[in-house]
């Protein structure tokens, strides 16, 4: 059911009014998860997630706090491996290959699936060395090539003009928004296939947030992006598809388990959701 831009604005979703709509026929499947549950020890943090993420799209994970959206995100680049008690059950595939098969190297996975974190975490090195870190550990030694990669990555992250004269300054000296763009440049420097973003703008002011959202639009054609956000308007602004997670409360054991409620094109989630819980969340009555 299409609505006019005017109606969308009246609904409080002006963002949806002024954007290109995503193709409803998706491209290559980048990730597919089937009945995935994630445990910390015996505690089931997330249950039964089945979805597919498509190439060159921006997919948003939204939902109230504690619904497991970050947990699912970190499963996609095996960063949950760093937590000793974490366990994944079910099928997680990246481009058809099982991510959790024995013999798979997590470092190789992360080389292809990069991540930007909630709090900008530049290394205590110079701006240049921050961006060059990834290529260097992948064996790139030639200064000319590194210069090229650093410039290209900083341009993609819309940071080049601001720092090109002080590449030797410490990465820690940048403002919040610049630091986050540095972290994005650092991630892009290894030319990953996918960029995962865990609430990348939650620590930033609105102007910095806007720049990063513009950045996402620009690099979409070269990368696949999955973003976790607690800001619905942001999800509506940037994403092609949206997955809404919620929390299942078990009254007896007083535990909360995350569950995927609905996953569809962004317009559908925000304008015509199938599940009443989705409806309640996006209209602000919940979460």
């Amino acid at each position, binding site marked *: 059911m299409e609505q006019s831009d005017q109606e969308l604005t009246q609904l409080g979703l002006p963002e949806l009014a002024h954007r290109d709509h995503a193709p409803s026929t998706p491209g*290559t499947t980048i990730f597919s998860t089937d009945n995935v549950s994630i445990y910390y020890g015996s505690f089931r943090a997330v249950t039964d997630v089945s979805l597919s993420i498509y190439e060159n799209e921006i997919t948003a994970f939204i939902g109230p706090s504690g619904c497991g959206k970050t947990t699912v995100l970190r499963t996609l680049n095996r960063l949950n491996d760093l937590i000793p008690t974490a366990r994944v059950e079910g099928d997680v595939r*990246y*481009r*058809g*290959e099982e*991510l959790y*098969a024995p*013999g*798979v*190297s997590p*470092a*190789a*996975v992360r080389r*292809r699936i990069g991540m930007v974190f909630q709090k900008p975490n530049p290394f205590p090195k110079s701006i240049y060395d921050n961006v060059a870190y990834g290529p260097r*550990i*992948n*064996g790139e030694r030639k200064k000319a090539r590194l210069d090229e990669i650093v410039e290209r990555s900083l341009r993609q992250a819309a940071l080049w003009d601001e720092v090109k004269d002080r590449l030797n300054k410490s990465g820690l000296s940048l403002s919040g928004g610049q630091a986050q763009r540095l972290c994005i440049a650092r991630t892009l420097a290894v*030319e*990953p*296939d996918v960029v995962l973003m865990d609430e990348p703008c939650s620590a930033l002011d609105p102007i910095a947030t806007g720049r990063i959202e513009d950045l996402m639009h620009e690099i979409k054609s070269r990368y696949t992006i999955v973003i976790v956000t607690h800001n619905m308007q942001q999800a509506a602004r940037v994403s092609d598809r949206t997955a809404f997670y919620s929390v299942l409360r078990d009254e007896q054991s007083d535990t909360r388990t995350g569950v995927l409620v609905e996953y569809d094109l962004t317009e559908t989630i925000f304008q015509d959701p199938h599940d009443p819980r989705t409806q309640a969340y996006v209209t602000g009555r919940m979460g």
Partner: protein
Amino acid sequence: MATAVTKQQQVDLREPRSWRSAKSRIMTVLMVIAFVVVIIPLGFVLYTVVSKGASAITGRFLTGDIPFNVAPVTVGGIWPAIVGTLLITALCTVIAVPIGILAAIYVNEYGGNRLLTRIIRFMADVMTGVPSIIMGLFIFSIWVIHFGFSGLAGALALGCLMLPIVIRSTEEMLKLVPDVLREASYALGASKARVTATVVLPAAMSGITSGVLLAVARVSGETAPLVFTILGGTTTPNYNVFTGANNALSMLIFQNAESPYTGAQGRAWGAALTLIVIALITLVVARLVTSRVARLSQ
């Protein structure tokens, strides 16, 4: 071009850059080797002490007086040294612990962020780095010269060594006590002294005790401070800590180590084993105290 590599449809997630992962694994192995390098001599020392010491230890050994160096291990024993170590360490604890706890209380509860407080805290830290021999020379200079050698002098020297350790660890434990406990007590109208004595100290007590026991274990084995304060060399036990030269296990070991007589050496090993057993028992009790409280508070 790098782009072509990442966008290929066929994905190989096995270990492509084998050298990098191999290097990381080699480093891990080196770390383990480092630990082994440290363990081996420790094991060797403990093994030597146990085997050579155990053969010397009998009931008579532990209770007999100290004979001349030439005497074989089966004659006499090390009782005077045991008495000395136990009495002097106990006296030193009694002296140093109350002062240390009070000083830590001052720094953490009363001090605030004043310059004096920061100086005291800093100096207590510096004091932990002062070599133990200096403490011995110090007490010699101000006490032994006037009052002669005694177990008390030794206790004073060991006390100077123990004091900063107790201050440091007590301060850490006091810091761990959550402020909400203090606030609740104040809200009931208690004064700062009462809050500290009736709420903060009891809450931190197990950690403080464990810290004190660890310090006792460390200090009981010290030799250098005693060389200048208790004189050693006595052959009969001196139960009077306040006057007269005294002996200690650590001094006995030191004085016998360079002796060519196997009897004297045997006594040194026996004393070493006794000393280590005392220190180990103290250490184990310290750990029990902390873990028992950890379990209780869960």
